[in-house]
């Protein structure tokens, strides 16, 4: 396809674990209490350098949602999912926002995340049941 176009960010950056492509800023974190199969996940208001997969309906802990998986443009690995539509009113705030799995990204201090660090089932809003 040719050379990949990436957007560079400034500030406290979360990037892809494999290829270090910038994905989001810590300023744009909406919630840190999401969960997926690999552990914690953060809800971001704005994410860059991702391509969106096909939308599908998925049943999550908080109800039925229409989501699409998002992939890093640099290496193509799946980094999380994006909420397209939420059926329940209380979940509407998630629409248009993206969740990045903590296991798949490097934190602002380049830290990795190991699922064994935290106990599962503590707080949390959503589970990825793919």
């Amino acid at each position, binding site marked *: 396809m040719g*050379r990949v176009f990436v957007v560079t960010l400034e500030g406290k950056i979360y990037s892809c674990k494999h290829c270090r492509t910038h994905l989001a800023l810590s300023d744009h974190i909406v919630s840190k209490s999401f969960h997926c199969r690999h552990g914690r996940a953060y809800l971001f208001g704005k994410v860059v350098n991702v391509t969106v997969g096909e939308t599908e309906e998925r049943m999550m802990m908080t109800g039925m949602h229409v989501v699409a998986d998002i992939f890093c443009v640099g290496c193509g690995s799946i980094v999380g999912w994006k909420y397209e539509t939420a059926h329940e009113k209380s979940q509407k705030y998630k629409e248009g926002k993206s969740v990045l799995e903590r296991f798949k990204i490097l934190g602002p201090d380049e830290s990795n995340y190991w699922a064994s660090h935290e106990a599962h089932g503590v707080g949390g809003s959503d589970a990825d049941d793919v």
Partner: protein
Amino acid sequence: MERREELDLCFEKLMVFGGGGGAKMGGCGAIIEWKDIPMELLLRIVSLVDDRTVIVVSGVCSGWRDAICWGLTQLSLSRCKNSMNNLVLSLAPKLTNLQTLVLRQDKPQLLDNAIETVANCCHDLQDLDLSKSFKLSDQSLYALAHGCPNLVKLNISGCSAFSDTALVYLASSCRKIKYLNLCGCVKAASDKVLKAIGYNCNQLQSLNLGWCEQVGDAGVKCLAYGCPDLRALDLCGCVLITDDSVIALANNCLHLRSLGLYYCQNITDKAMYSLAHSRVKNKREMLKSVKNRYEDEGLMNLNISQCTALTPPAVQAVCDSFPALHTCPGRHSLMISGCLNLTSVHCACVVQAHRAASAFPHPAH
């Protein structure tokens, strides 16, 4: 003291007519010491050193101070970590002939009073870089509008506190602006501002509206109608833009070289065909002007990454119409990252390489 002797020796070696005295410089008197070297020579030397040294040099003696304050036209204070504001406050009143000033900050330090001082003292300012000045407010823009009407290049990217009213005012005053960077100025860059720019700043050549989410078709259309000399426009992340904007640009900005539409997901094939067809329409006019062969190239840079509604025939038409758009490695200028259905789009270079390869007879024959 040894250092002093070394310097004196250097000085004596420099003086071609050897030894002190000898008033060969018409009328200026003898050159006996460092402080006596002609101003032009001093400025020439100063132009070779870094900015911190320039400021240090201006503090050596009154003669050098006056020479530098009179002759200095470019200054960058971006390296300052803490004291940029005070430095600007003290330097600006002295550097009245300043033309280029770079005040980009890693850590926000600049305040309105410094910019007001610059605007009051440096009326010849042409190039000002205020990127990442988070602490500046509209007062600065009003001050600049009054004090620096000759601005040609202005970079206020990242200044998130500016409002569009103040920028409208600046546009109506600084009508000679050619390069404007509003990347990340979410509040300041609105359709109202683009209308003002289209109306007032007709010499505009380069505009960066990256991540300015309020920008819409109405604004870009006014820009296209008002700034026929536009060469580079970046609409990265301007999600409200539709085909109408691109069509207006294709029809009115015949010198457009670089267009950025990253993540403008409302763009469809209609916009691509309008770009391709504008080329055909304008070819006749282009051939008339003998001015510059370079002018003939048309678009050199097009970024349509993540514009997932586009289809291969439309994008290929654009690639064919503009010979300067490349998908080949090394000269990459057509960005289609994230558009998985556009992998078949290629620039003419690939075809030519193919032809060259098949032109050689098979060695086995």
